């Protein structure tokens, strides 16, 4: 069995970790924004295993546990993930990964187990751990264990599907994470240059960020439409005072559609005269939309300077003048580390998290711009150029 770091034989940089984290979190967010199967709403595709599985088999369990943990933090903030879903996913994911990750790593490296088997094991382990977590932490009885057969059958299919795709794309993924071919699948603007070029932090901004974070916290503590609307208006006013325009609004449309499908168009109650939307649905939509939009809008302002500030502090602390993208952790086969830090893997993963997080407030901007270009090609019947935006952007 591998020890946490001893078999960590590939070099991993903070920017490589950041790339893996962005892909894993984006896939997780897309997965959670997709509508569920009505009879079995707990079943999801598990798209982020496209990243987690190759990452596990490349860098081992410890690094993957950090990737999983930070992925869930980003999904909680930007994925419209409820706290309970976050708790279930985090506890069951970390426990099943701790248990099955080393086994899969050990068996796959020795060619005893294939990627398909590893995918099936991890998927079924995660799903079973979810049921156990729900019983022990939330519901308090085991009445829903009848869902085990369909859940296992689903784990089999989804595990095979994701592990097959991950195996096919592993070469590009490994190259991108280890910077061997910067142009292949490279995620733009997630590394050092993005943070240094994005914002010049004005002296008063940190003070305003602290106030804004306090207001955001109140958003979730104070219930009721009046409070939500007031706080939403305060956040919006702050964003407008900094950016002077409503440009930020256009990046938030997928969150709005998701929340509208859940709340505005699907909630019973008293119909608004002449429409099929209810007052209760409208109220619920306003509350959830204002919370989500406040986070997304405001984080476009505070997340990048905060990340930059923390990375600078981390660099000063470890005596490294450069930003986190240059941090390299490389363990050779004897387990000797090139850097001497107390928690080197945590430092690297945290730096990667700080580098990745500023990308999320404008998560859908690239997709929006690509969609706009595709629409223009469609309108002008330029069939051969239809996929050009996708090739150039992603």
């Amino acid at each position, binding site marked *: 069995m591998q020890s946490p770091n001893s078999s960590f034989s590939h070099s991993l940089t903070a920017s490589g970790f950041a790339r893996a984290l962005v892909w894993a979190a984006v896939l997780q967010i897309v997965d959670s924004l997709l509508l*569920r199967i*009505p*009879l079995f*709403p*707990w079943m999801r595709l598990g798209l982020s295993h496209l990243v987690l599985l190759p990452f596990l*088999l*490349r860098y081992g369990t410890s690094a993957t546990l950090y990737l999983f943990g930070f992925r869930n933090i980003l999904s909680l903030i930007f994925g*419209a993930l*409820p*706290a*309970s*879903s976050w708790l*279930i996913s985090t506890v069951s994911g970390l426990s099943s990964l701790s248990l099955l990750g080393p086994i899969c790593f050990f*068996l*796959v*490296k020795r*060619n*005893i*187990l*294939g*990627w*398909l*088997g*590893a995918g*099936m*094991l991890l998927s*079924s382990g995660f799903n079973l751990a979810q049921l156990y977590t*729900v019983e022990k932490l*939330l*519901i*308090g*009885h085991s*009445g*829903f264990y*009848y869902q*085990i*057969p*369909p859940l*296992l*059958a689903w*784990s*089999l299919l989804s595990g*095979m599907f994701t*592990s*097959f795709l991950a*195996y096919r794309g*592993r*070469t590009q993924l*490994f190259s991108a994470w280890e910077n061997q071919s910067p142009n292949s699948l490279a995620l733009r603007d997630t590394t050092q240059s993005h943070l240094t070029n994005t914002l010049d932090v004005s002296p008063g901004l940190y003070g305003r960020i602290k106030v804004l974070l306090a207001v955001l916290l109140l958003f979730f503590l104070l219930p009721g439409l009046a409070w939500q609307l007031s706080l939403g208006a305060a956040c919006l006013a702050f964003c407008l005072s900094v950016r002077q325009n409503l440009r930020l609004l256009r990046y938030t449309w997928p969150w709005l559609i998701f929340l509208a499908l*859940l709340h505005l168009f*699907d*909630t*019973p*109650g008293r119909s608004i005269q002449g429409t099929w939307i209810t007052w*209760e649905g409208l109220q619920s939509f306003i509350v*959830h939309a204002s919370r989500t939009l406040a986070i997304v809008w405001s984080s476009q302002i505070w997340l990048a300077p905060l990340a930059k500030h923390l990375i600078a502090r981390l660099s000063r602390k470890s005596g490294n003048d450069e930003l986190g993208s240059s941090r390299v952790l490389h363990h050779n086969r004897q387990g000797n580390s090139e850097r001497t830090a107390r928690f080197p893997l945590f430092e690297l993963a945290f730096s990667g998290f700080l580098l990745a997080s500023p990308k999320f407030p404008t998560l859908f901007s690239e997709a929006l711009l690509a969609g706009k270009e595709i629409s223009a090609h469609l309108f002008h019947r330029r069939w051969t150029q239809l996929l050009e935006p996708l090739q150039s952007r992603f």
Partner: protein
Amino acid sequence: MSTQEGKLFRPLDLLIAITLIGVTLASSVHIPKVIGHWAEVREKGRLLAKYRLDTPSQFYSIETKTGLFKLAIDEKGIRVVEAPCLHKICVRTGTIKLAGRSITCAPAQLSIRITGKNETDNIDAITQ
């Protein structure tokens, strides 16, 4: 790429797939296919209410710490009509009627579970 990365398929994968299919089939045999008579509503394991399923169509409201739930009982079974949670997985689960089935709302720590006949069959509903 080196062979250290592993291969797509090994014979052990087939064994895992067969085991998963076997466990799936074996556990599905044990699921009861009997129509239930009661619906128990619990919040974090504590019984909040218990409703007969063979009563005329009716709506019930349940107040929980998270908010108000509205339940509907008709000839098809019981379903959650309205819930205060974000993703509304409980609403999307739909109607359940077979004994042993349940609807779960993790954010509200609420579960609705169908049970079979028992000694309280002459009572229509119990609430606490």
